[in-house]
C-alpha cells in the first residue's frame, strides 16, 4: 500500500444501477408517498372539481393524479424487490447522528426568536461540533465562538442581513465599538 491509496471506494459508477435489494424503510416511505399523493389529489379535486379545463384546479389535479400513478408504480416495483438484509435502519437509514441533527435544527428554530442569533448559533455549533467530532469542550467552544463571530461580521457588513437580537444588545455593542474610533 502506497500512501496515495484510496481512503474509501466512492460511488463513481457512470450509470448508477438501481439498487438490487429493497432498502430498510423503503416500503414504508413509498406507501407514505402514495397516501400523501392520494390525499393531495383529493385536495386538488376540491379546488374546482371537473368544472373546466382552464379552471384553477386543472393543473393541480393533473399533477397530483400523475403523482398518484407514479407512486403506485414505484410501490409495485419496490414490492417486487427482495429486501436487503445486510442493511439496517439504525445504521444505513436513520443513524443517531441524523436524528440528533434534525432535532437540533428544530431546536434552533424554536430558540432563534427568544434567545437571538448569537447565543443560539454558538450553542448549536458547540453541541454539534462536540457531538460529531468528540473533541474537547474548549476546542469546540473556541471553534463555535470564532465561526459565529465571522458569520455575524460577514452578515452585518457585507450582506446586511438582520437576524433576531434576542438577549444580546447588538445595537448597543456596535455603537460602543464605533464610539471607540
Amino acid at each position, binding site marked *: 500500500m*502506497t*500512501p*496515495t*491509496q*484510496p*481512503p*474509501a471506494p*466512492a*460511488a*463513481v459508477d*457512470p450509470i*448508477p444501477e*438501481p*439498487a438490487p435489494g429493497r*432498502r430498510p*424503510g*423503503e416500503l414504508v416511505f413509498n406507501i407514505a408517498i402514495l397516501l400523501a399523493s392520494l390525499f*393531495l389529489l383529493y*385536495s*386538488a379535486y376540491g*379546488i374546482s372539481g371537473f368544472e*373546466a*379545463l*382552464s379552471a*384553477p*384546479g*386543472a*393543473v*393541480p389535479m393533473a*399533477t397530483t393524479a*400523475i*403523482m398518484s400513478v*407514479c*407512486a403506485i408504480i*414505484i410501490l409495485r*416495483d419496490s414490492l417486487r424487490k427482495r429486501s436487503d438484509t445486510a442493511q439496517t435502519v439504525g445504521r444505513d*437509514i436513520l*443513524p443517531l*447522528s*441524523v436524528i440528533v*441533527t434534525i432535532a*437540533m*435544527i428544530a431546536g434552533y*428554530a424554536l430558540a*432563534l*426568536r427568544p434567545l437571538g442569533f448569537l447565543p443560539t*448559533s454558538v450553542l*448549536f*455549533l458547540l453541541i*454539534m*461540533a462536540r457531538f*460529531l*467530532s468528540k*473533541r474537547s469542550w474548549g476546542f469546540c467552544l473556541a471553534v463555535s465562538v470564532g*465561526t459565529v463571530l465571522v*458569520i455575524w461580521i460577514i*452578515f452585518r457588513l457585507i*450582506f446586511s*442581513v438582520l*437576524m433576531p437580537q434576542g438577549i444580546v444588545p447588538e445595537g448597543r455593542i456596535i455603537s460602543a465599538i464605533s464610539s471607540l474610533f
Partner: protein
Amino acid sequence: MDIISNLLIPIVNLDLLLLIAVGTFAGIYVGAIPGLSVTMAVSILISFTFSWEVYPALALMIGIYMGGVYGGSRTAILLNIPGAPSAIATALDGFPMAQQGRAGEAIGIVTVVSFIGGFLGIIALALFAPFLSDFAIGFQPRDFMLLAIMGILLVGSLSGDSLVKGVFAGALGIGIGAVGMDPLTVQDRFVFGIPDLRGGISFVAVMIGLFGVSETLAQLHSIHTPAVRQKITNIVPSWAKVRKHLPLGLQTSTIGTVVGALPGTGGDIAALMAYDHAQRVTRNPEVPFGKGAIEGLVAPETANNAAVGGAFIPMMTLGIPGDAVTAIMIGALFIHGLNPGPMLMIEQPDMFWFIVSSLTLANIFMLIFGLTGIRLFVRIVELPRTVLLPVIMVLSIVGAYAINNSVTDVYWMLGFGVLGYFMRLYGYPLAPIILGVILSRLLDDNWRRAIISERDDFGAMMMGIFTSPLSLSLFLAVVLIVATSTPWWKRWRARKAGVVASQGQKP
C-alpha cells in the same frame, strides 16, 4: 456599440470584477468540498444578496457557478470522491492518474480543458441566444407549456433510478409551486385552512432544504472518511498535449453545450454523455479508459464547463432553466422583480451581455486560480467536516430565515430537508422538484392561456399542436422521452442488439 459597452460593465466596475473573482475562488472551494454543492451555495446566496442590486448578486452567483463546476474535479482526482455531481466521470480516470503519482498532470490538463470548454459554451450563448430570443417571440403558450414539460421529463429520465421516480419528483415540484392563492382567480390551492400558506411556500426555503439540509444529513453517514495528502508538482500542461486532445475537446464541448442548453439537463449529465462519447471515438488511447486515460479527463471536463454557458441559453431566451443552478437564478431574478424570458432579452439586452461578460471573466479567473492556487485548494479539502457540516447548517438556517424574517420558513426548510434526505436514500432525483417549483407558474399560466384560446376544447388544442411544426416537434420530443424510458423500449433495444450480435458472429 451598446453591446460592447454592456460587455465592459463588469470590467470597468472594480467591485463587480472583484465579486466575480471572489465568487470564482469560493466556487472552486465549494465545488471541491464533497457535501458542498453549487446549487446549495447559490440557493443560500439568494437570500443573503436579497438587499443587493441585481448585477452584484448575479456576478457573485456566476462566479460560484463557473468555479464550482470546475472545482469538483479536484476531489475526484485526489480522493476518488467527486466534489460535485458533474465530476463523477472525472474520477474514473483522474483518480487512477493520481495513484500513479500524476495528480499534478491530471489537475493541469483538467484546468486548461475546463477553460476551453467553458469558453466555447459562452461563445455559443453569445451567438445563439439573441437569435433564439427573436424566434421565441413567436412561441405560442402551448409551446412554452410543452417546453416546460419536456424539461422536467428530460431531467427526470436522465437522473435517478427510473423515469417514474423522476416524473413523480417533477410533479411534486409543480404541486409545491401551486400552493397558495391562484393569481388569476384568487382561489386557494392546497392551503388547508392555514393562513400562512396563502402566500405560497417560499421557494428559497424549499431549495435550501432540498439541496442544503438533505445533503448535509446525507454527508453525516461518511463524516469520518479521512482525507489523503499528495504532493503535486508539474501542473501547467504543455501546449503539445493540449493540442493533441483539442479535436476531442471540441466535440465534447459541443455535446456539453447542447446538453446544457436542453431545458433541465446540466453539467452532470453532459459529463457522463461526453465520457461515453470519448470511449467510443478514441481508437487507441495511450492508457486504457479507467486506468488513467487523459481522454477520460478531457471529455467530461470540457463538457461540464461548456454546459454552463449552454444552460443560460434557455434561461435567458425562454425563461426555462437549463439546469438546477439556472433554475435558482431564475428564482433570484424573480425576487429582484425581473421576469426572465424573451421579453427580458429585448427590453434589457444589457443584462444578457453583462451575463456573457461575467461568465467570460469567471472562466478566466478559474484558469488563473486553478493553475496557481493549487496548494491552498488541497489544504481546504482537509478541513474537518465535523466542524464544516454544522457551519453549513447554520448558514442554511439563516438563509431560510432571512428571506422573509420568518421562523416558519425554517420549519419548511427542515421539512423539505428531511423529505429530500429520504428521497435521496430511496433513489428519487431531487433536481426535477426544483425545476417543477420554478416552472409551475409558467406551466399553469400557459396551459390556461392555450386552452382558453381554444375555448376549453382539448381536441382543438391538440389540432393546433399537430398543425404547427414547432409545437409538433416539441410534442414528439415529449413522447420520445417517455417512450425511450419505458421497459418495453429497453426490451426492444436489447432484442435488436442481440439480433445484430448474433448476425455478426455468423461467418
